[in-house]
């Protein structure tokens, strides 16, 4: 076979790669033609509704479903809890039962008809009050019952370094729990059918992991993995919370098995907010010390927070974030609360680590009368092990972000944001991420009629995965985008990685490039033989095969040589061949106005300068950064889970009071990729998560710069802004 060199080819040689290409499924999505799990409505589908626990901690003492079952149109009731071993409910919103009925309204009637009673137990839902958690014995203890931290790590001699330092800053910082708030809630449409020789269970599941949830359904029901088909062509948000088959997926499958009818079970909005995942909180006392020219010499922090019943908090091993001074002492403690459990949330740990570290560093800079940009630059030689590799990037990205923000012109010293009630200021923060591709395959087929397709058991989270697969296939085959097919969303295709960790774009494009190069290499052999040319000289472009710039034949003519059996090639990922690599940096800056009479923060402009190696599709990549900034603006300003200490309940679990930003809250977003040739040459690195990391800290720092007052805890709601101003 004609060996084709595995590279992306020289920069500038592409018709598609690196360009701004609209999503190939954009029209379907915008017009509503795209069918999500929530739209699945096969004939005969039963609709499920949920009964959930209304207490933070309770034991089910009575659970009678007879009246529900007696309602005309109710087909089955599924129990997540019982009054035996499985009676304990550990948070408001935990699933108790599901009713499947002919219509959603009847299912709701069924839920109302369930007789349930609880023995209510004492609860703790406060994530910020460490003393209360201590009194309630909700921390971590050793075998002797002695309180022990989750992390207690010392490097060097921080106390001495602090005593010797020119400047020491001490502060309190924090960030509250948020929920994932997927626009399309979690859920599945399951069809159990043992009649044919097809898979017994088809789960149309809203999932980030098409290829790996099948076995989770299979083992639950004693099926072979090959007996479960998982389909997810479109998904309305996951953010790290949709990797599992989940107990509600199993419930839908069981109810379908019991009734012989397809069953659709989607979480209702309140349950969606309460149950399938949250981002853990963290609150910290920080001391940071530096020399007078801004070299950080020591970091001490003690943080606590919650990730729900497990009693975790944000990862103390990664504190402080990005910067790694020679002396440090980090302690972390987790509070076991009777709140919904956590799940990975876009860049797990990083936004919170950044919101604690970069805010403290900006306050340190203020104390040094330094711009935080200069403070960062003074410390680029002491970065943590993963950030270290990108130290040169940060310098360049800080400079570019400063240009886009007009930092030199607009920046002023801490608290000099104007004389009127509305103050204006700038802030900066930076981040790091991994983004290395992982195991994934792509199967490319080229047919005798010229058709070409790539298929992967992957999923498009809305990030444009389908589009980048098609772009790489089309580029490699020298075809226009609309002449190739990219198929994903089914576990019947070759294995695709679960989409988490910003690994998908590298995984699917690397695999597809390799498969397409191999498949076209086979095609070149056929062309070489027929047209008597040297296969090594061949290339593709403009729907034709070329030999040293001379057209040999059209793509169609070449494909006619294939015969009835399509050329099939499967490309693996990752391979150390330069198509993909790992580690990104990224810098963000914020320009905000703060109304010191009402406490409202307005975002004037956000700048994000992001590297991610070789950019396959500049348009979807930019979208990813816009989305990151918007999510960051959300958790910086108003988005939070509000737990009521008295009732133990999650009281803002709806779209009205769980405050996500409106379009008018977003401000101007400027996104630029840092992509000199050195970045292109790194190959593809993932981008999904990093853009959300430093947004919160950058905004918080801009508020501090505007007002001269640190609003210590995110989100900086108007109330918290006014409280901080009043206390200053």
């Amino acid at each position, binding site marked *: 076979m004609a060996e084709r060199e595995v590279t992306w080819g020289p920069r500038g040689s592409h018709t598609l790669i690196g360009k701004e290409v609209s999503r190939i499924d954009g029209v379907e999505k915008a017009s509503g033609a795209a069918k999500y799990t929530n739209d699945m409505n096969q004939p005969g589908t039963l609709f499920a509704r949920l009964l959930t626990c209304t207490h933070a901690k309770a034991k089910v003492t009575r659970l009678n479903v007879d009246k529900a079952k007696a309602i005309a149109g109710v087909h089955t009731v599924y129990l997540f809890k019982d009054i035996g071993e499985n009676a304990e409910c550990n948070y408001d919103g935990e699933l108790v039962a599901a009713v499947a009925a002919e219509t959603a*309204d009847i299912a*709701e009637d069924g839920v109302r008809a369930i007789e349930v009673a609880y023995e209510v137990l004492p609860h703790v839902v406060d994530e910020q009050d460490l003393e209360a958690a201590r009194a309630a014995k909700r921390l971590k203890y050793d075998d002797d019952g002695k309180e022990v931290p989750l992390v207690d790590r010392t490097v060097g001699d921080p106390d001495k370094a602090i005593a010797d330092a020119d400047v020491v800053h001490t502060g309190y910082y924090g960030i509250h729990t948020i929920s994932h708030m997927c626009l399309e809630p979690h859920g599945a449409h399951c069809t159990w059918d043992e009649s044919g020789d097809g898979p017994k269970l088809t789960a149309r599941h809203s999932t980030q992991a098409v290829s790996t949830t099948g076995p989770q359904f299979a083992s639950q029901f004693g099926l072979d993995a090959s007996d479960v088909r998982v389909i997810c062509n479109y998904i309305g948000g996951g953010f790290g919370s949709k990797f599992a088959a989940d107990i509600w997926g199993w419930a839908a499958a069981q109810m379908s098995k019991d009734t012989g009818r397809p069953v659709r079970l989607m979480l209702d909005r309140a349950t969606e907010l309460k149950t399938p995942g949250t981002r853990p909180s963290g609150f910290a006392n920080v001391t940071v010390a530096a020399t007078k020219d801004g070299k950080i010499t020591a970091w001490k922090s003690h943080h606590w927070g919650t990730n729900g019943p497990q009693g975790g908090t944000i990862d103390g091993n990664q504190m402080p974030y990005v910067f790694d001074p020679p002396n440090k002492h980090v302690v972390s403690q987790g509070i076991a609360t009777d709140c919904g459990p956590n799940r990975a949330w876009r860049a797990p740990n990083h936004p919170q680590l950044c919101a604690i570290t970069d805010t403290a560093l900006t306050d340190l800079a203020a104390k040094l009368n330094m711009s935080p940009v200069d403070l960062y630059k003074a410390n680029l030689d002491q970065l943590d092990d993963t950030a270290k590799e990108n130290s040169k990037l940060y310098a360049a990205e800080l400079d570019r972000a400063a240009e886009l923000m007009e930092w030199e012109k607009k920046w002023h010293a801490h608290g000099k944001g104007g004389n009127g009630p509305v103050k204006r200021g700038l802030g900066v923060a930076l981040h790091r991420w991994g983004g290395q591709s992982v195991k994934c395959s792509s199967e490319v087929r080229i047919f005798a009629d010229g058709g070409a397709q790539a298929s992967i058991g992957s999923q498009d989270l809305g990030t444009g995965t389908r589009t980048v697969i098609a772009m790489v296939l089309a580029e490699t085959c020298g075809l226009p985008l609309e002449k190739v097919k990219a198929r994903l969303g089914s576990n019947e295709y070759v294995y695709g990685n679960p989409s988490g960790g910003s690994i998908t774009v590298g995984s699917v494009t690397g695999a597809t490039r390799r498969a397409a190069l191999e498949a076209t290499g086979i095609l070149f052999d056929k062309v070489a033989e027929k047209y008597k040319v040297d296969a090594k000289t061949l290339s593709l472009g403009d729907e034709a095969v070329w030999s040293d710039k001379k057209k040999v034949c059209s793509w169609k003519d070449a494909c006619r040589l294939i015969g009835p059996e399509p050329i099939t090639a499967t490309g693996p990922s990752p391979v150390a061949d330069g198509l993909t690599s790992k580690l990104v940096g990224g810098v963000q800056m914020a320009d905000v106005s703060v109304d010191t*009479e*009402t406490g*409202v923060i*307005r975002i004037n402009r956000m700048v994000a300068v992001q590297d991610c190696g070789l950019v396959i599709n500049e348009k979807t990549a930019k979208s990813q950064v816009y989305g990151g900034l918007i999510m960051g603006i959300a958790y910086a*300003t*108003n988005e939070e889970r*509000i737990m009521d200490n008295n009732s133990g309940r999650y*009281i*803002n679990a709806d779209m*009205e*009071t769980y*405050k996500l*930003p*409106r*379009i*008018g*809250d977003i401000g101007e977003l400027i996104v630029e990729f840092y992509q000199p040739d050195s970045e292109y040459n790194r190959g593809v690195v993932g981008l999904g998560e990093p853009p959300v990391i430093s947004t919160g800290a950058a905004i918080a720092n801009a508020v501090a710069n505007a007002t001269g007052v640190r609003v210590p805890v995110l989100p900086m*709601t*108007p*109330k918290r802004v*006014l409280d901080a101003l009043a206390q200053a």
Partner: protein
Amino acid sequence: MRDFEYEAPTTLANAIAVLAKNNGSARPLAGGTDLIDHVRCGRLEPDVVVDVKKIDELNVLELNDSGLRLGAATPCYRIYGCPEISQQYAALTDSCRIIGGIQIQSRASVGGNICNSGPAADSTPSVIVLGGICVIEGPGGRREVPAEEFCTGPGKNVLKPGELLVEIKFPARPANSGSHYRRFIPRNEMDIAVVGVGASVVLDDSKENIVSARVALGAVAPTPLYVPAVGDAIAGQPANEDTLRKAGAVAKELVTPITDMRGTAEYRVHLTGVLTERVLQAAISRARGEAICTKIGH
């Protein structure tokens, strides 16, 4: 959701007859932007829903020398779509422009907003300060109630079973007058008021002094609250910063807000002062013929 019957009478008499016949278990439907939600979530369980949008009297929108007639079912977009109303009854159109988004404004009515009787309703303070009179018709005939007396508690009002709000009448605007409504929400748009303030002022011919003023507050009491003491405190005073500060201080004394997740009582009291000053300032500017920034969220 409970099943219900739907009726769409085309005359006022028929509508009242249907309402009266069902004796409290019928519910008028204007834009439905509150009602449908309340029925879906089970807060209201009417047996009959009576669509009132097809009745001429409830759709009047008439501006003449004696004032403005606003049919109870007239949707917001028609109200702010009329430049003369936007100019003369600016507080009312300020309200109509911020109730929900475009889709909501295409259906939602001021009548529905008042009859829903939420403490945070965005049009009620404006209707009060502009001197709106609610014209009510029922089996017992027609009666008129000043807007400030219409709401009696959260979700409660003076309507008796079988009665319908037909229209709201506003007196003609005096010379040298201006009005404004603004609410505080943490976000830019599409949110429920933490505090809302409506104000109308009349200046003297020099436009330097306040002749009279009416102020009403939303979301700080069980009902939208008319606060005549604020107007009394600044009537006859120069239209300057000191006077505005006084107005804000008086307003803060009068409110009895609750603490909920949208804001603590203390915070709402503070905002009442800030917003009262800002809204009065804007109303004064308008009375002077100056343009104000009405961009949402500013």
